């Protein structure tokens, strides 16, 4: 019997359809159907000015907008031969880690909800709010920030921000203990999650699975460490790994990543406290440098001869390895923007980690994959 889990189904956490063939409660075959949220971001990008595309990047993944902004901006900077100032790189690290915390806490909330745990869902949402408050205090928005710029970031941190952020860090570290007590301390949690949705290291590599799913299988690959971008080569943190490649492993990896993120945030705050400076590159071409340049004959819609270039960037997004390929043909619109979403690939391996388990296991397994349909469909 084929059942459609989606497109409107509580398990999906977005808009997609998991077709499942079941025999009783046993899963025999799965077939994810994507595309319900395909907005053609790559196509629209061909028609937009670089700084306008950042707006689209926020919408690519609605829980990790900052990470996608950073990804695109890094690619665009390479394609446009622009170097951001060091302070901007640190602010990007800070923003991305706050975003990673927010994304992981959102994942935690949704994941425990899938397991039937009600209270931690609200605990998660409560704590994520603090992170959104932090982001709001310097970007002005809670989800769609439009904060990064080709050549830096839009504005500097407000005064008193670092102290507020440190308080939030203290609070979160306390809460992580509570999270663990509610999940790892529960026998039912282990009964449900241990040995569930197993994807071994070899399969992960073969199928291109990245991010916490890969690290939970024991492969220590983290682009922040292996191919540092922004200021990640100057921060000190450990790559979280676990063994087993099951749902519990993914849980452990994400919890550890949150702790490491707090560590990185603290380091970034310290650095930013000590080193004031500009956060947007100087002598940018006018059509890039002015975020709110007047549009018109003298504005950025005029074609001009700018050096061509190709940009390739890779970041460790909260969900895994995200890539961007930006082709600059010397005009104010990129010729082509290609985005690679980690969940896109993690989902394509769904058959490997779902078949053989039970219907009741689908929500925890798919929850542990941490799906954000926005970035799968783009």
């Amino acid at each position, binding site marked *: 019997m084929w059942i459609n889990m989606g497109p409107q189904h509580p398990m999906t956490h977005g808009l997609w359809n998991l077709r499942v063939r079941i025999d009783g409660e046993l899963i025999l075959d799965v077939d994810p159907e994507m595309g319900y949220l395909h907005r053609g971001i790559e196509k629209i990008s061909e028609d937009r000015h670089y700084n306008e595309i950042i707006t689209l990047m926020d919408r690519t993944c609605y829980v990790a907008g900052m990470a996608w902004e950073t990804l695109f901006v890094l690619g665009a900077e390479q394609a446009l031969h622009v170097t951001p100032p060091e302070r901007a790189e640190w602010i990007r690290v800070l923003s991305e880690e706050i975003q990673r915390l927010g994304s992981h806490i959102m994942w935690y909330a949704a994941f425990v909800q899938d397991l039937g745990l009600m209270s931690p869902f609200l605990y998660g949402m409560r704590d994520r709010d603090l992170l959104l408050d932090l982001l709001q205090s310097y970007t002005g928005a809670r989800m769609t920030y439009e904060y990064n710029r080709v050549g830096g970031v839009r504005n500097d941190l407000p005064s008193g921000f670092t102290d507020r952020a440190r308080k939030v860090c203290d609070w979160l570290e306390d809460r992580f203990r509570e999270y663990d007590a509610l999940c790892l301390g529960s026998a039912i949690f282990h009964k449900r999650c241990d040995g569930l949705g197993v994807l071994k290291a070899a399969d992960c590599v*073969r199928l291109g699975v990245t991010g916490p799913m890969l690290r939970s299988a024991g492969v220590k690959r983290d682009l922040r460490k292996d191919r540092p971008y922004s200021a990640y080569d100057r921060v000190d943190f450990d790559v979280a790994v676990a063994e087993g490649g099951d749902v519990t492993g993914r849980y452990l990896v994400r919890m550890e990543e949150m702790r490491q993120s707090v560590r990185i945030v603290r380091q970034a705050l310290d650095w930013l406290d000590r080193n004031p400076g500009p956060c947007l590159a100087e002598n940018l071409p006018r059509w890039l440098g002015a975020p709110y340049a007047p*549009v018109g004959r003298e504005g950025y819609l005029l074609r001009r001869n700018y050096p061509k270039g190709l940009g390739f960037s*890779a970041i460790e997004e909260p969900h895994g390895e995200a890539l961007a390929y930006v082709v600059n043909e010397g005009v104010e619109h990129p010729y082509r923007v290609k985005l690679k979403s980690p969940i896109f690939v993690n989902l394509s391996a769904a058959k490997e980690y779902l078949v053989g388990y039970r219907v009741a296991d689908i929500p925890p397994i798919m929850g542990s994959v941490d799906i954000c349909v926005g970035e799968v469909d783009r």
Partner: protein
Amino acid sequence: MTGAASGVGPDRLLARFPQGILGIDPFPGTAGRLRFDPAIALELFREVRDTLGYTHLAMVAGIDWVQTREVLYAVWSDAGRRYLLLSAQLPADHPHIESATAVWPSANWHEREAWELVDISFDHHPDLRNLLLPTGYQFHPLLRSFKLHEPEELEVKVRDV
């Protein structure tokens, strides 16, 4: 950039494919951008995976250059900790290339996407059907010929008073 670590240095393949490899351009932040003839695709993929150690296929991108179509592969080596870009130019009238799924199973969805969005067909792909677009959709949105809309006309028309 012939690194000492195993799996780096795409120029090692130049001897293996003197005709097939059209050139290796330096590309900052990666091991380079290797341009190859689509005829050797599958053999090259095998070599890149087995000899150079690029075990992880990260991305397959299709780019429409109007006269040609480019297909771009980004592969990652855990040992060398770097990406390598593989690029092939396909003729625009019938763009097709051997599917990479035989070498990297992770190419599956990437190639489905490139097939439907950029109209590049991948030979011997196990399951080439629509992924993001509705089944049977007639158009390929990421082709340059697929126009979203004309750029906005911003000229101010001055009325005669």
